[in-house]
């Protein structure tokens, strides 16, 4: 048989650009726009110390005389100009949004990561091992599903607050938020992964791996996990938007990020106090940012779900 020339493999970057996923992305204007919005917002949050005109959390730089400056207008006493106006304390709304997004995004990403790790592990175990393991894990999941996620998060938040010493409460608030949202959100990961695992574990390549004597954990990690990751990716993206909203809700209700370290939700709570007195911008801009962030992430998630679903292609 004639020797076939070994083909030269293109670089990873070229292959990624040539992949079906990248092609479908380039041909989905909504996805491209959403991605740009998300990237700009994330970049703004990451680079907040560099681009924010003021440091809203350093009392030394605040001037109470600057309070309630409308957006785009010079302050009547000091003559200072603020792009998106200031709040009652004279904090620059644009800067607080940038810093607030850092908290919101950090909590969102961390909570989804926690939920994902927990859900994927439990879902794999339930699906692959079956029997009592499955019964226990999935019944806990079912019970948790009967409560609204936000209620579960508040419950966890309340318990955690009860057991942390008061001195550390503000410091711990962020981590407790992450824990609360993460624990309230693992169920859907577990359910989807369990379902996909049930399908994959009867595939012949899993039987073949069993035959060559791999341990159940090696099979789960090496053979099943990579094959069930597609739906996990989609859920993670949509969960991210939900987690950010959940964080904002908790903070809005006053059980989330403290006013000294405000997230977007905290900013909205502060802003709504002034809504009826005419200072609309204190509420409007944080809310609009939250909307843009959550909507773009959701649209990206929708696109990803369609792109990864072979039946829709």
């Amino acid at each position, binding site marked *: 048989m004639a020797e076939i020339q070994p083909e030269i493999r293109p670089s990873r970057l070229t292959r990624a650009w040539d992949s079906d996923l990248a092609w479908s992305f380039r041909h989905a204007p909504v996805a491209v726009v959403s991605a740009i919005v998300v990237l700009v917002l994330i970049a703004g949050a990451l680079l907040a110390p560099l681009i924010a005109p003021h440091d809203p959390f350093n009392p030394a730089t605040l001037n109470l005389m600057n309070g309630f400056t409308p957006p785009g207008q010079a302050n009547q006493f000091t003559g200072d100009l603020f792009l998106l106006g200031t709040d009652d304390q004279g904090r620059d709304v644009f800067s607080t949004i940038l810093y607030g997004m850092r908290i919101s995004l950090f909590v969102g990403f961390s909570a989804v990561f926690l939920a994902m790790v927990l859900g994927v592990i439990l879902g794999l175990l339930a699906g692959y091992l079956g029997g009592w393991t499955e019964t226990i894990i999935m019944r806990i999941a079912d019970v948790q599903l009967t409560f609204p996620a936000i209620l579960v998060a508040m419950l966890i938040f309340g318990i955690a607050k009860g057991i942390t010493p008061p001195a550390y409460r503000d410091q711990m608030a962020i981590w407790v938020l992450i824990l609360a949202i993460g624990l309230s959100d693992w169920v859907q990961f577990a359910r989807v992964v369990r379902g996909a695992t049930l399908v994959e574990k009867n595939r012949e390549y899993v*039987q073949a791996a069993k035959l060559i004597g791999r341990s159940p954990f090696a099979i789960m990690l090496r*053979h099943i996990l990579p094959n069930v990751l597609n739906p996990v990716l989609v859920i993670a993206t949509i969960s991210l938007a939900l987690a950010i909203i959940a964080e904002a809700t908790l903070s809005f209700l006053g059980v989330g990020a403290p006013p000294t370290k405000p997230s977007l939700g905290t900013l909205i709570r502060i802003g709504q106090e002034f809504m009826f007195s005419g200072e609309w911008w204190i509420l409007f801009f944080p809310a609009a940012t939250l909307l843009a962030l959550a909507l773009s992430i959701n649209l990206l998630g929708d696109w990803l779900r369609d792109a990864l679903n072979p039946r829709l292609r």
Partner: protein
Amino acid sequence: MTDTPVLSVRNLVVEIPTRRGILRPVDNVSYDIHAGEILGVVGESGAGKSMTGNAVIGLLDRPARITSGEILLSGQPIHNLKGEALRRLRGKKMGMIFQDPLTSLNPLLTVGDQLTETILEHLGVSQQQARERAIAALEEVGIPAARSRIDSYPHEFSGGMRQRVVIALALCAEPDLVIADEPTTALDVSVQAQIVALLKRLCRERGVAVMLVTHDMGVIAEAADRVAVMYAGRLAELGPVREVLTAARHPYTSGLMASTPLASQGHERLRQIPGAMPRLGNLPDGCAFHPRCDYAQDRCRRDPGPTLETCDGRAACWFPLGAERKQEVGA
């Protein structure tokens, strides 16, 4: 043959308990396979072919279980092994070739990864040696440019090439026994012939015992040394392939042969075996085949199912075909 057979199945019974009683997808089956021999197992869907293979390799899914009989691998009982011992034995001593090469390879791992995984698990060699062995294994099954193809993913191979990879995978840990469960069913006819020839060659060269499960009489005729015909979980006939195919003793075997289409044989209407195989839940009394048998007599309906032992050792039939002729020759 005087040596111990690689695989020896003795009076194997597999049962599935259900609400309507206990089903026996494999009922009192016995056979041997020697080194370098291919035993073909044929029968209709649901005759217990695959179930027998799965029982041997320990892949029976609950609630199916072996309730009696023995499975000996090189003289060692393996039917009662559990957990760790079973895990170590299969893969090392036994390999399996599945029906659909599309699903028997992990789509997200390269072919090389899957081969080296198996080799490392069983042969105790270094990563580098494992890779060399993997390349050699691919070359042995006739994959061109194996050295550059080893880092390809399964979807980059055609169906026939993928089945070659599956065969390489089953053989790379150097097992004594390979169970091939319908290895050619999902392939084109032209590719089927290549795969059968490959299996046959590897079996001869390596002295592996092969259990070839199929419903394709052509494949059996081409590859097998001996053939076991199964019907409703029982052995209907067992013998050297030439004798069974040319002078079937069991009416079921002869029916199977008659219903195999031949390209060379004009356009006559294909003969069928009337009716369908009975459901395991309500097997008829007597011989399980008698409602469909042209030669059924009172004894077939009355006496409990004939077995190879109670009959002439080759066909489980009270009135095997060609027996009269044999008597004439004997007299």
